[in-house]
């Protein structure tokens, strides 16, 4: 059994938090892992000193991974601990996701809207998913959705856009787009994307204007590269809520450090 807790920290981790976490870990059979997604480092909470090496600062995005037969129970207990020391990202609400402020602060003037939809359960085909991703784009951002769909289809014909096992990232630079936008769809059922990497459950649409400004382009390229990072990509696929996915994608878009 696997559970995760994704959260922003409220304060730096000191030896006190590290010891508390080790004590909590000792209560369960499940194996725990703490990942600092802002710094792309991970540590075993049973080793308080390595935990300190993560150099968790206030505002860093972290994920605790809990794996084992009593993961559910450990998850309940650790949720309380996380609630004390950080801002848990377990909600579905995306009106004001906590990560939006971070994106605005770190990439000012960057209009990258992250639209999201969870637990989508319809036909398990690629084409309806592409349509759905386009429908997630905020009103007015795409001037010609049908044209965008055609461009995405044409791109998929050249080669399927599965980036990592479980993750598809259809992407296009299109004249139909007014500003760069990312839309995310998570499906309960695996969807055949026509790739040797197998079916996917998470779909991330990257759509940007045909001639994006260099800083927008750089952010999208940073995102693609970040998905090659095993820790970040695994954390994204593991994340159980739209808010957590939004936060992890934001972390991938902004410059590291």
């Amino acid at each position, binding site marked *: 059994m696997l559970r995760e807790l994704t959260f922003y920290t409220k304060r730096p981790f000191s030896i006190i938090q590290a010891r508390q976490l080790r004590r909590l870990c000792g209560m369960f059979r499940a194996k725990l892992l703490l990942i600092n997604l802002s710094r792309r480092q991970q540590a075993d909470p049973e080793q308080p000193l390595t935990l300190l090496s993560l150099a968790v600062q206030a505002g860093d995005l972290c994920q605790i991974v809990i794996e084992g037969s009593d993961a559910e129970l450990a998850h309940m207990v650790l949720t309380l601990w996380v609630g004390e020391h950080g801002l848990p990202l377990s909600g579905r609400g995306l009106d004001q996701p906590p990560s939006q402020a971070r994106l605005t602060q770190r990439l000012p003037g960057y209009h990258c809207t992250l639209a999201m939809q969870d637990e989508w359960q319809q036909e398990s085909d690629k084409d309806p998913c592409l349509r759905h991703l386009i429908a997630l784009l905020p009103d007015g951002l795409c001037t010609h959705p049908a044209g965008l769909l055609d461009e995405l289809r044409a791109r998929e014909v050249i080669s399927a856009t599965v980036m990592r096992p479980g993750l598809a990232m259809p992407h296009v630079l299109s004249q139909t787009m007014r500003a760069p936008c990312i839309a995310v769809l998570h499906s309960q059922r695996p969807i055949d994307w026509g790739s040797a*990497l197998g079916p996917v459950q998470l779909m991330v649409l990257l759509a940007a204007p045909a001639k994006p400004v260099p800083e927008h382009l*750089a952010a999208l390229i940073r995102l693609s590269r970040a998905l090659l990072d095993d820790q970040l990509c695994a954390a994204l696929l593991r994340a159980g809520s739209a808010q957590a996915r939004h936060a992890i994608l934001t972390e991938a878009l902004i410059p590291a450090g």
Partner: protein
Amino acid sequence: MNIIAVTACPTGIAHTYMAADALQKAAAVMGLKIKVETQGAMGIENTLTARDIAQADMLLIASDIDIEQKERFLGCPQTKVPLESALLDACAVLRGLVHNAS
């Protein structure tokens, strides 16, 4: 063995850079020397110079489209692979390259 590589994809914002990173990572693990030129939406970066090309034993093209300025590589032994295979298993791609060369 001295390898040069070019990555390119139709959109040039994702695969080009991911494949380049994957190839560099794999080459480091296998102890191979590699220089990867990316032909993406940012233009041609980390350009392969005439000297790079002259010193290379093998050119790897990881792309689903035609690459730019390929006349530079005339006379250099080349292998072309789909981008997906470089992302799927860059080590296997490089192993195949080494195998072909020997």
